[in-house]
């Protein structure tokens, strides 16, 4: 059977995102996994298989490199566990793999876990150092994640006449949202002036245009919708799931078709997910969106690539207030990557959990009243991998 309409999410949990010096990778993984199983009202013994999403096992000594981490952390032996990775889409990929496991009919209760421990080293010793040292000896040298997205920011501002302040307003909006998310890494509002005055990272970005470097984990239990109907106390349904991989990791910025104004991968993944979900007017039909705001400009181009507005209209959509809390299409009510941080493997699972909370009416202070349909989006690679997952209420 297909995933869309047939696979349900019956339990989910997220650890606090932040700098967890007192807790290690396996501690975070265990907290999220047991949390999701408990939320589903299950005993771990009932869960038949698991999928682990971790993008950078090398930061913490390769313990997260394989399914062994799950067996060790939650006592899952001898059940099957596989680690999946697809750059920044890794967390969403764990959920997709678990959903495929259900759709294939192989298992009926499957755990998807995303976990990442990034702060056992300093932020600069984390992905920046790995990007500088472990990547291709010539074509990749000089690249950092902010530096790559800054290329897009400068092109975007030049092409559409967008002010640097508009980018900063993405950070202001998402940090305001995070004041209502007790699990976000940063939970205080920031002013436009603070964003603009923050130390430079890659021009035009300052530190407050960038997702912080963060530890965290999230997990979800997936099951067939028919199982959920009979057994679940609460559940949501996966209405569409798209993954698009549009090019190579190093080669995308050498690609003459790359216009540096958006990401084809997001457009392709959204076409698949929205097609499955019957979404033709995303802004009208979706009640909320969690998208990959790794840097401020990314959220603006995501609006366009996800079809919430036309090309070049992302800045205007932001300025209209439509994507802020209370707007007609609120984006990143969790605070997004800007405030939650981006423990890579955990992010996609966290986003799906956020949409599920709203659809199930459990989002507390952040709740979008009457939300029935939302979309989560991750982008990786940089920009050549995207996943879009549409989550809706049961029929």
């Amino acid at each position, binding site marked *: 059977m297909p995933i869309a309409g047939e696979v349900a999410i019956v339990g989910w949990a997220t650890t606090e995102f932040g700098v967890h010096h007192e807790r290690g990778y396996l501690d975070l993984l265990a907290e999220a996994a047991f949390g999701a199983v408990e939320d589903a009202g299950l005993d771990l013994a009932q869960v038949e298989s698991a999928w682990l999403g971790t993008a950078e096992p090398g930061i913490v000594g390769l313990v997260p490199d394989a399914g062994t981490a799950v067996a060790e952390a939650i006592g899952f032996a001898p059940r099957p566990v596989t680690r999946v990775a697809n750059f920044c889409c890794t967390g969403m990929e764990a959920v997709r793999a678990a959903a495929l496991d259900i759709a294939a009919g192989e298992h009926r209760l499957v755990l998807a876990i995303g976990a990442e421990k990034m702060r056992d080293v300093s932020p600069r010793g984390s992905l920046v150092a790995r990007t500088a040292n472990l990547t291709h*000896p*010539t074509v990749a040298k*000089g690249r*950092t994640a902010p530096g790559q997205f*800054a290329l897009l920011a400068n092109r975007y501002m030049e092409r559409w006449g967008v002010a640097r302040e508009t980018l900063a307003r993405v950070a202001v909006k998402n940090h305001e949202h995070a004041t209502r998310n007790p699990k976000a890494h940063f939970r205080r509002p920031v002013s436009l002036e603070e964003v603009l005055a923050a130390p430079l990272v890659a*021009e035009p970005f300052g530190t407050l245009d960038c997702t912080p470097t963060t530890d965290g984990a999230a997990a979800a239990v997936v099951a067939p919708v028919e199982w959920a109907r009979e057994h679940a106390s609460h559940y949501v349904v996966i209405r569409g799931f798209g993954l698009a991989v549009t090019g190579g990791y190093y*080669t995308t910025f050498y690609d*003459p078709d790359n216009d540096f104004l958006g990401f084809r991968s997001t457009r392709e993944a959204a076409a698949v997910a929205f097609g499955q979900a019957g979404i033709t007017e995303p802004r009208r039909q979706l009640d909320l969106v969690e998208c990959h705001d790794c840097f401020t400009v990314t959220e603006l181009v995501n609006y366009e690539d996800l079809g919430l507005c036309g090309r070049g209209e992302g800045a205007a959509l932001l300025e209209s207030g439509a994507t802020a809390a209370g707007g007609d299409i609120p984006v990143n009510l969790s605070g997004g990557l800007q405030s939650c941080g981006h423990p890579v493997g955990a992010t996609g699972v966290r986003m799906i959990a956020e949409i599920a909370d709203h659809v199930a009416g459990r989002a507390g202070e952040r709740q979008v009243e009457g939300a029935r349909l939302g979309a989560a989006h991750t982008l990786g690679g940089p920009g050549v991998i995207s996943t879009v997952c549409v989550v809706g209420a049961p029929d």
Partner: protein
Amino acid sequence: MPVEPAFLVDGALALPATAVRGRTVADDDEDAVTLAAEAGLALLERTRARPQALVLATTTPPYDEGGSVQALAELLGVGPDVFALELTASLRDGLAALRVAAALGGTALVCASHRGRGRDDGHGGAAVLVAADGGVAALRPGPARAEELRDRYRLAGAPERSEADPSFVWDAGAPRLAREWGLEAPSVVGPAARIAARAERELGGPGDELAGETGVLGAAHALARILLGLERPQRVLAAASGLAEAIEVEPASGGGAAEVAARARAALAKERRTEPPPPLDWSALDPYTSAPRSWRERGQDLRLEAGRCAACGRIVFPHPQTCPGCGSRELSAERLPRAGTVLTQTRDHVYPLGRSTAMAVVELDGGARFYGQVVPSASVAIGTRVRLVPRRLHNGAGAAQYFWKIAPAEAS
């Protein structure tokens, strides 16, 4: 040592973007190979020549052992079937390289460069294309000398070079040989600028303007002087460390020599920054490298080769396995043009290479894209015309890794 005259076909100078108090100063990522390559590339791209031999002369080679000329051959795209030789003993080796090129016959490219740290030293490169006939000036190698005369040297493993007492250099160095050999109104090139200039003045030579603007360019200095004065007959003497020789240069009729000289003078007259860029700090980089990878991908890294799709004609860098346009697996290697326009850029403050690293995406003339570092001495904006220049990217695993960086285009 009679050598048949050979002919100078063309020549080019490559001088860094910065000059501080009359001395040209290279960026931290420029070395004797990249400076020689810049001069050689300018020459080869202008003449479309395909030399059978390549001679590098420099007293500041990046490698003590193992050679630097093969990297130069790759960067210039003159290999792999080229006879390549490097001369690294003395400042005299610029002229020695001309003599060797003349003796080899055929077409030879001579590149000389210098990135010395001495008091009088400037940084730069010069390239001369030598052929058995048909050039703009005749080259007639003259007397040569080798004697135990330690006026400038560095013992293996010693961190700094040693320099003799100036009075000894005056008595035993180039001034003595110029007199002994009876050179008429010679250009005198030696490592101590003031002593060489005094000798030249006393012997009625034309005067070394170059040393005043760039400092002494080591093995490249004599070649640069030959190019700058090419429209008139010259007798050039170069001597250091007991190795010396002289050459006669005679412009042919037709005005070609004056054109070469004018181009060299234009390269010298280019406006330069007066502050060196902030230093690159390579200490925080410990990049993965692999000797098999470097060899396998030398076309991409050093020859700037892209893949040209046989089916749809698309050009793609780096050379892919499969054409991203049409899926064809038939692609042939093709060197990219170095000129292009900036599509977008940023200045990155977290890449661990010093204070900040400018990065840019370039739409190359001809359809391919390049994405990489901007040279430390420049900034670029969207729409800036640029060219790709060879630079040292890092020293991963103790080897010099060369690649291409983005520099503002020369004003034409």
